[in-house]
């Protein structure tokens, strides 16, 4: 107990929400200068646990000890006083303030009652230097990419002299290069004696960065193991069973070209993008964040306009910038931003599942609610959505189950070409495999899948063909057997010049 190195100890924490026991008897401890990984499926209770430490929730039972003394954390001020800083998946930054202002928000250095901009910016520059990011303290946060936002968050935590840094899936939104940078920073913090609570779904990151692992399953801590534990063992602890295969792609027979994209261009964003997707095929789109992948698929779906080129489904050209025409032709889009674009969070599972089919289920202005209910019930069962009932608000579902709802609404609409943009971001291993199975079922039924993913093993494991985008162009195309991490990365960082390399010929369709 009286370990001098112990920063934080949690004993028998319990927390219930109406109808749900979120946490039940969780033990956890954190020492100075270690990276302690919290592992668990989505919905296991990791987020609830860290919200206790940041003061967002109060436990119903159990104790929290800081430095050996029992403490109560009733709000952000309390946790700040205890030196606990949390970096959530959604950043707490004000877009229209500068980097320096964000770092010192509410604590800006003052002189004669005025904010001392010079000193604030100088201090911010020191912190940014320590984090190892090259951003001007005077830059507006709105202009920064997601990786840099995270660095600003870390700098902010450092400015608070945090002794405990909690990071909730910090790598989920980063490219592999950025992940390396982040790891370097975390290692440096560890050397400085900071205790880091690290949440991730990427098992390979545990061995690379972690010291100890606490696994949480269904609201209970089921084990504490060293970070060197084999991945299979970790998965077994996490899901309570072993997962046979991480990427269970079953290849279907390839049919006719369902979707063909010809010379699609939006000035300054993407250029001369051409490819085809055939029935029964999974085409992956790999590339660095910012390569224009999301922009291309949104234009294909009609969610955004484009300047030149054409999108054809089954030979018929789709009108530009028309979501409804794309849907009528059988295209569906599972957007990158699940919460912001894919779901009506405060509506029920049933309503979200019925969103796409609502129009076709309408006769004389009236929605066939009974039919909609039956369809939702059927698809929810088929997808194995874990919920209290069809009336549950999707906001309260875990990430994996939310994603199943988004995919489910397109399945109900008999989608022939399903575009998945980062389908498994922030989703735990168990749910991932379920989504992969779904992709298999779709292609087996003759549909085509176009999948964007920043998770390279996933693209390689699930795609029949991989398109690599770089700087708004298709840098190359690799068949599944030639696609390796190295080959994809080489293309992703290349600078594609005028017309795309010869590899793309197969996909040209001109």
């Amino acid at each position: 107990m009286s370990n001098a190195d112990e920063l934080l100890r949690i004993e028998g924490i319990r927390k219930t929400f109406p109808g749900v026991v979120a946490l039940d008897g969780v033990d956890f401890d954190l020492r100075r200068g270690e990276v302690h990984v919290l592992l668990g499926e989505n919905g296991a209770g990791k987020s609830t646990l860290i919200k206790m430490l940041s003061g967002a929730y109060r436990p119903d039972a159990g104790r929290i000890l800081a430095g050996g003394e029992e403490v109560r954390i009733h709000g952000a001020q309390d946790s700040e006083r205890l030196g606990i800083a949390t970096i959530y998946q959604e950043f707490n930054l004000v877009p229209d303030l500068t980097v320096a202002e964000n770092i010192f928000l509410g604590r800006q250095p003052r002189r004669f009652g005025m904010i001392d901009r010079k000193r604030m910016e100088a201090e911010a520059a020191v912190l940014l230097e320590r984090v190892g990011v090259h951003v001007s303290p005077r830059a507006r946060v709105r202009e920064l990419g997601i990786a840099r936002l995270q660095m600003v968050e870390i700098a902010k935590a450092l400015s608070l002299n945090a002794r405990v840094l909690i990071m909730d899936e910090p790598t989920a939104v980063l490219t592999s290069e950025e992940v390396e940078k982040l790891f370097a920073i975390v290692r440096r913090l560890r050397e400085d004696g900071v205790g880091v609570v690290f949440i991730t779904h990427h098992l390979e990151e545990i061995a690379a960065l972690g010291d100890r692992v606490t696994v949480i399953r269904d609201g209970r801590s089921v084990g504490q193991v060293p970070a060197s534990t084999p991945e299979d063992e970790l998965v077994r602890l996490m899901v309570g069973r072993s997962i046979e295969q991480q990427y269970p792609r079953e290849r279907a027979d390839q049919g006719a070209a369902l979707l063909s994209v010809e010379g699609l261009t939006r000035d300054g964003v993407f250029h001369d993008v051409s490819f085809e997707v055939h029935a029964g095929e999974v085409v992956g789109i790999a590339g660095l964040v910012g390569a224009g992948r999301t922009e291309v698929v949104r234009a294909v779906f009609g969610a955004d306009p484009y300047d030149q080129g054409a999108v054809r489904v089954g030979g018929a050209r789709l009108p530009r910038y028309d979501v409804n025409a794309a849907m009528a032709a059988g295209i569906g889009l599972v957007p990158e931003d699940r919460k912001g674009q894919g779901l009506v969070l405060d509506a029920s599972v049933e309503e979200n599942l019925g969103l796409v089919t609502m129009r076709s289920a309408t006769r004389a202005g009236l929605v066939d609610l009974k039919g909609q209910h039956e369809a939702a019930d059927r698809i929810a069962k088929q997808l194995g959505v874990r919920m209290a009932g069809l009336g549950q608000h999707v906001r309260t579902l875990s990430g994996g189950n939310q994603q199943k709802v988004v995919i489910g609404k397109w399945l109900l609409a008999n989608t022939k070409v399903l575009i998945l943009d980062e389908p498994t971001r922030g989703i735990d291993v168990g749910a991932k495999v379920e989504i992969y199975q779904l992709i298999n079922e779709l292609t087996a039924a003759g549909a085509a899948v176009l999948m964007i993913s920043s998770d390279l093993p996933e693209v390689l494991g699930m795609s029949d063909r991989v398109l690599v985008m770089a700087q708004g162009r298709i840098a190359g195309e690799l068949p599944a057997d030639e696609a390796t991490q190295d080959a994809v990365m080489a293309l992703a960082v290349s600078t594609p010049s005028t017309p795309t390399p010869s590899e793309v010929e197969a996909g040209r369709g001109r």
Partner: protein
Amino acid sequence: MAAETLKSSTGAGGAAAVRRLLLDNGALTALIVLVIAMSALSGDFLTTDNLLNVGVQAAVTAILAFGVTFVIVSAGIDLSVGSVAALSATVLAWSATQQGVPVVTAVLLAVVTGVVCGLVNGFLIAYGKLPPFIATLAMLSVGRGLSLVISEGSPIAFPDSVSHLGDTLGGWLPVPVLVMIVMGLIAAFVLGRTYIGRSMYAIGGNEEAARLSGLRVKKQKLAIYALSGVFAAAAGIVLASRLSSAQPQAADGYELDAIAAVVIGGASLAGGTGKASGTLIGALILAVLRNGLNLLSVSAFWQQVVIGVVIALAVLLDTVRRKAGATPVAAGTGGGKGRQAATYGLAAVVTVAIVGATSFLHSGSSSAANPKVGLALSTLNNPFFVQIQSGARAEAKKLGVDLTVTDAQNDASQQANQLQNFTSSGYDSIIVNPVDSDAAAPAVRAADKAKIPVIAVDRGVNKATTDALVASDNVAGGELAAKTVAEKLGGTGKIVILQGQAGTSAARERAEGFAKGLKAYPGIQVLAQQPADFDRTKGLDVMSNLLQAHPDVQGVIAANDEMALGAIKALGAKAGKSVQVVGFDGTPDGLNAVKDGTLYASVAQQPSELGRIAVDNALKALQGKKVEQTVKVPVKVVTKENVAGFSG
């Protein structure tokens, strides 16, 4: 969801079900608490008649609010509904009464007006990318302006066949209540069952997700605002038929009541949630509150404070309950203890607040022996009427009369509600100072039917019997004002006229008097006539503007002292020297200005005298003594020479 509207009225499915319903619906709890509190405090509250009154008084707000529910559920806002209601009613009355259009066509025209206004809103928002707040704020102004243009500022009589919408069916069921229920069912049906209704929730919940799921968001928005326009038109027609006249200034500020009703009913201004049943409860809460406070004779000024506090508490109750219950829909089974405690705690706070406030503000215990007289004033936002009130109060005290004063805030329909409350709670006599002479008629006729003597003060009531009219003659006063300024200027000169609030009878009659009086002086040139709404600030603004255009002005006639005092501010040192200002009313401030010499003269009515004589006559009438049909209170021109003899 269509069934939920009914649930609120037929919640007799076992005690557990009732308890759950209350816990799940903070607004309903608040309504029940209010009803219990009001029944405990006033014996007149829980009678069939009065409850139907509450229904009638809620009807217009509720119908408007149903329309606004659509808009708020889809994460928009509609500020224009009050104006659109007035415009639709005005179009109906104008086309049927003045243009001879068949009534059916006129009703259709009114609805089309509502639709068009809604479509314009929707177009500006969906295709013009204007924020809903701004687009509908613009329509608020345009709608009000157009209804004033069409009606030329005067109320227009409503066709009789449509006015039946304001009557009662079978002698007891008021048609407005029926219309409210029908519109409520339609709203619940639209929200719960139709494609557009379900789209509202999706668009309000997440517009981008809705668009990417193939909903035609822009077209839906057009339809949503058009629907709101239709409901506004319906509300306008009901409002005008209750008053038997279409008032261009009707429903002013009702958009805020409607929004409050929707939010009290549990909708979020962020969109995605809201129900027709909740909106109905919200509208009922507002109506119960106004009705109850009238019955309890709470001072008119304190009423506004209490209403504001209760709105805040009702919404607070709901948010606390929601927070405690995390997910209102999913957690339908029972609920945590904290949540219950929070609900009960807040309910207790609300009760204590209401009971405390009302008993504290209760204007003295009403002993049964004293006769009860109600005084329904058009406004208390003007010293003139405040003086009527004080004159009446003083006389009532002297004669041993229990006097209850209400303030209609220049809203004819609110006044109709207040008169109705007097009638239903069995007052012995009613004194009315009509907001509008035509619009007060139906409520006065109801009082006549209940054999309650009615005395009109300051303004008459058309098409209804009053036992006496206590007034000073506005037209004659206007003539006097014109004569005074003309003679001071020696029969030649350039003047401007500041008119009263367009659409009020006092403004019309005084303007008529000015015109009559000036006919005798062809040498007087009227440079401009502009309305300044009887308001001192507006008088200042309008006069400043006029001075820019006409620096050579020599005289000002203002339709009341407040505007005259505003004009004097604008004139600065010129007032009383090179420019002669004549006001109207003889208010204390006005008389002071006359003493100082900045105001040359005021046509003094004697407002406290009006109040005194009105109470006098009311007492005579209820004792069965004979009263004169019209009691003229003399009007006098007050100048520096004779100002000492006046005290208002």
